[in-house]
């Protein structure tokens, strides 16, 4: 089993499984955020539920963080190994002839997304943790919407969000179907998965971008 875990295939399967988990998480995150466009009250309720439910806070949240960290660390480890597998570089290498930009630059889009997540943590998660578990401030179930709106007043931040989500879309355009390929899913449904993946990769980031822009312009 130890040989299995260190094997190249097991690692890529691990990358794929963590990716699929994060892909699933994105849907929930977007669903919650979307409510902010329609109803301040529903958004506050949903956010309050997510922020105080012990199952989500103490089970799902650590898993999610582990998933994010794992996906990045493993991605980084593999990227390093892959770079080392070609110790002398080509003088001329026409990678674009045979593979898409997205597939060849997952590390770059991944790093950009990582940078975004750091920003996102500084914006929301660290204040939230501070609020709840360090300073033990009293919970106000109606505070979330205001916090959200406040964050989307700075055009620079909104711009960074938009760029990050475009990169996320590029990352997903390759990553979604790649995850299925890695776990060995390649059959008559593959075409459906690929098409669905393309739609997903565009719609989900677009959703986040629309939310950010709406709040920015409606403020």
């Amino acid at each position, binding site marked *: *089993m130890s*040989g*299995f875990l*260190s*094997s*190249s*295939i*097991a*690692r*890529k*399967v691990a990358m794929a499984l963590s990716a699929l988990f994060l892909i699933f998480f994105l849907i929930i995150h977007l669903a919650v955020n979307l409510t902010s466009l329609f109803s301040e009250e529903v958004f506050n309720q949903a956010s309050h539920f997510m922020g105080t439910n012990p199952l989500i806070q103490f089970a799902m949240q650590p898993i999610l963080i582990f998933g994010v960290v794992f996906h990045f660390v493993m991605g980084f480890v*593999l990227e390093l*190994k*892959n770079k*080392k*597998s*070609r*110790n*002398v*570089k*080509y*003088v*001329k*290498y*026409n*990678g674009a*002839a*045979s*593979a*898409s930009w997205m*597939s*060849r630059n*997952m590390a770059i889009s991944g790093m950009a997304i990582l940078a975004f997540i750091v920003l996102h943590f500084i914006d929301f998660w660290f204040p939230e943790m501070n609020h709840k578990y360090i300073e033990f401030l009293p919970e106000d179930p109606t505070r979330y919407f205001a916090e959200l709106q406040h964050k989307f007043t700075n055009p620079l931040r909104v711009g960074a969000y938009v760029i990050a989500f475009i990169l996320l879309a590029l990352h997903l355009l*390759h990553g979604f*179907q*790649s995850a299925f*390929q*890695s*776990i*060995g*899913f*390649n059959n008559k449904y593959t075409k459906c998965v690929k098409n669905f993946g393309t739609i997903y990769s565009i719609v989900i980031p677009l959703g986040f971008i629309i939310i950010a822009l709406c709040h920015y312009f409606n403020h």
Partner: protein
Amino acid sequence: MNLTLKIWRQKGPQDKGQMVEYKVTDISEHMSFLEMMDVLNEQLVAKDEVPIAFDHDCREGICGMCSLHINGEPHGPDRGITTCQLHMRTFKDGDTIYIEPWRAKAFPVIKDLIVDRMAFERIQQAGGYISVNTSGNTQDANAIPISKLNADLSMDAAACIGCGACVASCKNSSAMLFVSAKVSQFALLPQGKIEAADRVRNMVKQMDEEGFGNCTNTGACEVECPKGISLENIARMNREYLKASII
């Protein structure tokens, strides 16, 4: 046509190597790429220079020996062919052509454009076979019917010529397409099922030990493969490997 060639020259495995520029003139568009190389080598011999070493043998696209990285792509810009099947009509008069060996840590350069592909041999030796002795008493060839679909898929995977273009094209120098083709060929046949689990485990283990990179599903290998080996084989190998390791 007249061409400028920039060719990798390297005296031996320890030598550093460099790109050297050559000019060739009056090249016919009907020549194959390797015939153009022959013309250049004849010129070098005439000038008492050491000709350029490159691997080639059958010159009909099946032995898998030829292995040139031409203008940034293994086997050149055309699809579905090996270097020996590339013809000069693909190029234009006055073109500059870059010619390099396969680049991968697992494929060290022996001389000039020749690389050592023994890593592929060791992967095959790790399990790329069915353990059946020659006897004259094996059961009749028609004793086990095999669905045409599986026989055809197996044949498609078995068409791999082991040239290494998959590794050369991959940004990660991954050998997954090569290994998966062999694994798939046997996994699709009833005769190969008996040892399937050991086979895929051992071949993947050897592949990892050889220092190939990891597959990130860019699909470059499938595009550059002269025999059109499909990425489906990689998915099948992943499946076989998971099955063999977990169950």
